[in-house]
């Protein structure tokens, strides 16, 4: 009996592994194809347009571009497995090193935005569900639809105009004031953690002032998403019989809603949080461009403008991998915490 269920679980795990592997391969293949579609000649980008035909041919052979396509895909895969994403034409550093340098800023921004989204979205969703169909529900519904409909780059510009240029309440573009740069010893790469570790409280304050606006822009999106999902999970829970039992027992409405129903809605919410984190990575591209935030999004758009193909493809594949990982994590959390999911 037990061995049968274990075998079933092993089979499910094997299926999952095969699924992830094929998706991963497809992801790499799509990136490879996009790379081949690029209007830029990768050989010309290296040797320059005044190179002789012989130099050109030699470089072409060196890059493996004269080999059949399957061989090229295989070489690309092998390089990827070794963590080699090629060299950036703009920074002249390996792309993987650049990504390691810029990624912490994006993670920091996405994390703060997610924290904001959770702090506002969960209570909003709970209140909406508890007052289903009445005015608090409608107000929250319209607010989250507004969040869904907002062009992030535009909201960022307007916030800069109002809170930085007009009111002076928040700091302007960038992650930190220029004269504070490189004063903090990088431990985690996250300024909000490294600054207090160094005892640099002024720098921490400055970093927070820079964080406020971009985090609000991204936070609005995750708030909209989290509030909507919380509402639907809560409505499902509030219709269950144990809620009826809790009310019959004479528990206060607040206790029924916030403790009993929300307690059970938290499990599916965890998967939503993982997915929200993924969409924040995506949203960070435009937001970072507007706020000159030195993260992966800015790096990606800069590379786009400079036709730095290795960097564009490297970012695409890294973001795709992280996205895939987060989706997998969401599934995993769901199955670990909910005994009904096999």
């Amino acid at each position, binding site marked *: 009996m037990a061995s049968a269920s274990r075998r079933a679980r092993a089979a499910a795990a094997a299926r999952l592994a095969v699924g992830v592997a094929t998706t991963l391969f*497809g992801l790499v293949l799509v990136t490879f194809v996009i790379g081949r579609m690029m*209007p830029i000649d990768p050989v010309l980008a290296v040797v320059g347009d005044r190179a002789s035909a012989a130099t050109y041919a030699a470089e072409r052979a060196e890059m493996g571009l004269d080999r059949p396509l399957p061989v090229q895909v295989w070489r690309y895969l092998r390089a990827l497995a070794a963590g080699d994403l090629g060299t950036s034409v703009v920074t002249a550093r390996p792309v993987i090193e650049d990504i390691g340098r810029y990624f912490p800023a994006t993670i920091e921004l996405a994390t703060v935005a997610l924290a904001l989204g959770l702090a506002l979205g969960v209570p909003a969703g709970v209140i909406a569900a508890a007052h289903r169909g009445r005015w608090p529900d409608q107000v929250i*519904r319209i607010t989250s639809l507004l969040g869904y409909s907002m062009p992030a780059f535009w909201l960022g*510009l307007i916030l*800069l*105009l109002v809170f930085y240029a007009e009111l002076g309440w928040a700091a302007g573009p960038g992650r930190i004031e220029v004269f504070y740069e490189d004063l903090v010893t990088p431990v985690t790469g996250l300024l909000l953690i490294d600054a207090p570790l160094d005892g640099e409280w002024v720098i921490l304050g400055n970093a927070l002032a820079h964080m406020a606006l971009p985090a609000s822009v991204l936070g609005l999106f995750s708030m909209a998403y989290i509030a909507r999902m919380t509402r639907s999970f809560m409505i499902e829970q509030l219709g269950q019989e144990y809620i009826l039992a809790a009310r019959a027992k004479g528990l206060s409405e607040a206790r029924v809603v916030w403790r009993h129903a929300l307690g059970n809605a938290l499990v599916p919410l965890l998967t939503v949080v993982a997915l929200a984190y993924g969409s924040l990575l*995506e949203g960070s*591209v435009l937001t970072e461009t507007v706020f000159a935030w030195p993260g992966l999004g800015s790096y990606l758009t800069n590379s786009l403008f400079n036709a730095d193909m290795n960097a564009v493809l490297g970012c695409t594949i890294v973001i795709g991998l992280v996205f895939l990982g987060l989706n997998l994590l969401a599934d995993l959390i769901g199955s670990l915490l909910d005994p009904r999911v096999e």
Partner: protein
Amino acid sequence: MTAEAERAASMPRSVIAARLARARSRTGEIARNPLAAAGLAVIVLLVAVAVLAPYLAPYDPQAQELAGRLAPLGPAHWLGTDELGRDIASRLIWGARVTLVIVALVAAISAPLGLVLGCVAGYLGGWADVALMRLTDVFLAFPRLILALALAAALGPGIDNAVLAIALTSWPVYARVARAEALVARSAEFVDAARLQGAGAWHIIRRQIMPLCVSSLVVRASLDMAGIILTAAGLGFLGLGARPPAPEWGAMIAAGREYLFDQWWVVGAPGCAILVVSLGFNLLGDGLRDVLDPHA
């Protein structure tokens, strides 16, 4: 009149009458939902503005007047002028056409593609299903904007390429929705009946399965429209969408960025237009979901 006769009298006489009655009751349901009605109004307005652009726009959207550049809101130019002295209101009005064309083309490419692939996968099952669903998984594994960015960069800037890039990132969702519906429909008795009559797989997919998937697909598409508009505007903002001097709203924001702190209206107006239109689609999609997809 007996109850029997009453029912007979209210029975539709023909397929067309039945469809008309159903359309009327659905329109009524949408009209009773004030938010959805507001959304519908915005979209009707967008279509009207796009169609009537030559008559509504007070100026030529490309006409430059460098002496009057960056003029504030006023009676001559009620939304001011941009960095080349072009009338912003006229550019917004013509921009409605660009937005509508992008949305319509993306929907026209991605929804039918997703419908066909999803129905084939769901109805045939087996290897076709596994292969097609793996393909959708691959495309869903990329964040949408990132894939669209990389594709648009590979194809080069321009509206047609932006449309293609966005369409290539939108179809998997439709395929998923259509497959789920097809899986339910394939075991329905009327499908068995068609099969017993000797109908081939393609005929069944086209005549029996696809019509059943359409209503979920319409809901999904209307909810997706806002996302398409925002992605297109984002591509335009990054210079990967419409090429200048086309009056594309995202590109207008990018051009006005330099003048943000002193001439806010250059950035403000197109952003409001994007927000209102995408909110309109979201409101309508939300309402349509309640009407067309009661089990969601």
